[in-house]
């Protein structure tokens, strides 16, 4: 589980995260939405241990996580596939970097290529793959790392609407079968409510949590849920929190 308390971060004089506290129980899915530049990626990088926050406490599975690396599978906003590795070798990058057995990671990846719609592309170079395929491969790499906590920074950001829907449905199903604790950063309110159990709305920089909206539907969820009346009222709540925090204050 993830526990964040009184988190603050500044880059020199720029206050990015003002005061953020939340927790995500084991096996739960938390989505973070907020205007561009409000510190969402910064938050994930702190959780990943890549960045030490100016102040506050971060626990992952009961251990202090500040500056502790290698306990979460972090997927950055860019796919970051290594151009000198073929698709299959890219899938095992996380597992290899963790020092896991390469052969086992390869076998596991090969099994997942089919499910990720990448079958037949095992030996392709990243530059030979479409944007959507690259993003799916980056997601696959994140799973194959074999860690419980997944930190996903706009994993579907570069995809067209149709592929995006497909992958959302697919991710929801995958996570229903495989227990993971997830923090997902996204700009897409539908995506947040469709996938997550709880949605945190961040205010503009410096980020604070301006609203918490529950999404209490059982998994896996049908994509037509987005037309459900209750879903729409929750979406309105998120949008309102986003809007209140928007330019009207200025």
């Amino acid at each position, binding site marked *: 589980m993830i526990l964040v308390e009184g988190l603050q971060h500044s880059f020199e004089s720029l206050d990015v995260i003002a005061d953020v506290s939340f927790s995500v129980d084991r096996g739960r899915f938390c989505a973070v939405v907020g205007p561009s530049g409000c510190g969402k990626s910064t938050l994930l990088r702190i959780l990943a241990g*890549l960045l030490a926050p100016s102040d506050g406490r971060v626990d992952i599975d009961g251990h202090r996580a500040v500056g502790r*690396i290698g306990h979460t599978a972090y997927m950055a906003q860019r796919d970051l596939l*290594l151009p*000198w590795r073929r698709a299959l070798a890219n899938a095992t990058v996380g597992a290899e*970097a963790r020092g896991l057995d390469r052969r086992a990671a390869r076998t596991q990846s090969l099994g997942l290529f089919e499910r990720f719609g990448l079958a037949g592309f095992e030996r392709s*170079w990243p530059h030979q793959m479409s944007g959507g395929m690259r993003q799916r491969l980056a997601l696959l790499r994140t799973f194959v790392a074999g860690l419980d906590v997944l930190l996903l920074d706009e994993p579907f950001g570069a995809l067209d609407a149709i592929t995006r829907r497909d992958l959302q449905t697919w991710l929801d199903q995958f996570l229903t079968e495989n227990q993971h604790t997830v923090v997902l950063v996204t700009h897409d309110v539908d995506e947040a409510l469709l996938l997550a159990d709880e949605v945190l709305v961040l205010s503009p920089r410096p980020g604070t949590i301006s609203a918490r909206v529950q999404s209490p539907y059982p998994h896996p969820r049908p994509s037509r849920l987005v037309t459900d009346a209750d879903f729409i009222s929750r979406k309105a709540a998120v949008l309102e929190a986003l809007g209140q925090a928007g330019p009207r204050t200025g």
Partner: protein
Amino acid sequence: MNTVRAAMRETAPPALFVVVLLALWELWAGQSTSRNPVLPAPSRIWHALVDTAPLLPSHVRTTLTETAVGVLLGVSTGVIVAVVVSGWPLARRVLHPLLVASQTVPIQVLAPLLVLWAGFGLAPKIIVVALVVFFPVTVSTTAGLQNVDLEYIELIRSFGGGRAVLLRMVMIPAALPPLFAGLRISLTYAVAGAVIGESIGATSGLGLYIARSQRAFRYDQVFVGVAVVTVLSMVLFSLVSVLAWVLCPWQRQTDRST
């Protein structure tokens, strides 16, 4: 079929151009042979090649040895310096002016001094070749290492990968293509560097062969020497290109399209 035709389309125009040039040269120089021994006709150069062919292999062997050892020395020191310089900003500030200065000393000036220090053997030529190779390799490898996307490094770190993992998975592969680019540039001078070293003082080598021919006013033989040097350079260049092709498979597609 297609690849053969493509290769033909690639090589035919330059080959034809060379043939036309040689023909013109033959026509022009053939008439003035007696008056102008400094520019012998290609046919006379060919005869000189056939005549001195038995002498050439041992000279070629010497020059090739010097070049090969010098290139290896230059590349390995270049890579080491690149690693130090890119990982340690202070080293860059200290070494950069020295690196640039090392390139401004003309080889023709340096070579006699090296012969004085290191004798008539292989050593001074190896040093000349290494110096010629060292700079382009260092500069391009340093650039390659410094331009590594920081997010790749973060990706490996986020999974707990340490320095060794980083080196193997990111730094080395990222530095290879620029290293080869630098090596390709410097190879065109490497053989010439050995030859210049030999022409100053040597007991064997193509540089010695050219210098002797020059002193004997055998300009046809001088051209033989120059032609052999050119062929050697091109062979080395192709070897390195093949090595780059083998070691950097991800670059193949982009190579072909550009």
